């Protein structure tokens, strides 16, 4: 499972489309336990990513880097620095290895370092960690991703805006987990993993 410029571009194109399609749904989810902007934030960011990638980066590293920069400078909120850091970590590592599992592991670590969230805190981390682990032993499936996303439903938020709700956050999906779910669904569907 190696990330290449080609499959990476396909992956991002698909992800951007999913986000555009699900913009309102993501904001809806966010308005239940956050401030209702996650869909708009992500759509703005992925539009910028698409524009940046349309300028045809020379290699995977620069593709990952422009993705990170577009996310960091366009998404804002909590999701911007988190997704941005994740892709920046992948960009950094990509000059040494293009193994997908290793890249995602580095990304997840960066994400946790930036946001300080642990497994079970009801954040996107609750999707990234299981994905990381399942990639490691080549067992990532669409069902596993869905499972991870759905697992956030019963969690009580400890990080991000949803944490202000305390117990009342239980029973709602975490919007960042859902958007991360789309990221990894795209990864599967565009054949990054064969």
């Amino acid at each position, binding site marked *: 499972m190696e990330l290449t410029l080609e499959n990476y571009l396909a992956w991002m194109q698909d992800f951007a489309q999913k986000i555009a399609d699900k913009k309102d749904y993501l*904001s809806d989810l966010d*308005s239940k336990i956050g*401030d*209702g*902007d996650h869909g*708009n*934030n992500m759509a*703005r960011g992925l539009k910028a990513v698409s524009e940046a990638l349309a300028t045809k980066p020379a290699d995977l590293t620069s593709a990952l880097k422009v993705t990170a920069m577009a996310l*960091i*400078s*366009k*998404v*804002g*909120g*909590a*999701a*911007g*620095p*988190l997704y*941005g*850091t994740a892709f920046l970590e992948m960009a950094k590592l990509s000059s040494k290895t293009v193994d997908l599992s290793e890249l995602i592991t580095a990304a997840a670590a960066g994400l946790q370092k*930036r*946001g300080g969230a642990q497994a079970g805190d009801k954040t996107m981390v609750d999707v990234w960690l299981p994905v990381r682990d399942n990639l490691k032993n080549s067992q990532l499936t669409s069902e596993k991703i869905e499972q991870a996303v759905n697992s956030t439903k019963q969690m009580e938020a*400890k*990080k*991000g*805006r949803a*944490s*202000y*709700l*305390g117990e*009342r956050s239980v029973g709602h999906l975490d919007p960042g987990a859902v958007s991360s779910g789309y990221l990894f669904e795209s990864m599967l569907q565009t054949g990054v993993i064969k």
Partner: protein
Amino acid sequence: MKKIINDPQDVVAEMVDGMVRAYPQYVKQIPKTFVMVRSDQASMKGKVGIVSGGGSGHEPTHAGFVGQGMLSAAVAGQVFTSPTPDQIYAAIKAVNTGKGVFLVIKNYSGDVMNFDMAKDMAEMDDIPVKSIVVDDDIAVENSLYTQGKRGVAGTVLMHKVLGAAADQGASLDDLEQLAKNVLPHINTIAVALSAATVPEVGKPGFELADDEIEYGVGIHSEPGYRREKIKPSKELAAELTAKLTASLKLSSDKKYAILVNGMGATPLMEQYIFTHDVLNKLAEKSIKPVFVKVGNYMTSLDMAGISLTIFELASEKWLDYLNYPVKTIAW
């Protein structure tokens, strides 16, 4: 959603444009950013720069407080969304006159992360940067397991105090110490009558019945601690004052400043009536604030509601800072 806007995607760009064209004497825009810096650059010379910012929708915060004696620059994010590190970094660079830059951040995970990334960038440029994370909203209990308390209207008082000190020549370290000392003495709590409608979302962040209010709501429609039927102003004042009495351990031996803040759609008449009731409540405890400010300072778009901030003036200097003259759009 009935709003005086054009395309919801353009609200921040057009607002910033309106602001800098209306008030060129106070603020100017860094081209291609939503950063507004003080027009009067001369007044920043030899002083530590103070940068604040956050999501838009809280006007006049933050740009309304840019000017001599207060902020050096304000960074506007999308509505209710933290600005991005590149923009914050642009503000830092623009206001650094060699003495370093102090950041005032409200305690939301997005804001903290974006400002942190900007700080990293500035440090790579050898610009000394320090910061305070304001978390004055006592509606949410602080605890190890959560994000901590939120930053709300009390942030404006933090801006005022730091701005006055910076204008009088405080160093970056002085400002950090001052901010740390002041922070626990500023506490805020709100009550909402209706939620804000984010233009891109198009519907209110939450629904309250025609006769319902919610205590402890945040400035982005974050939920509060209790809903109940609308009460007379004096009972709302009693509830909020009681919460602040407990958190600040109010005492007639101490001096206090008060900020009664309208959330955007609540008229000044109601704010003054509420002020009357708060002052009565405090008078019952033999407390007569030495500084009172009433108005729309940290709003939440078109939310109806009010917040009450009490600032214990543990040092006589802090009152001087509040009274220190400024040249801004909105203080």
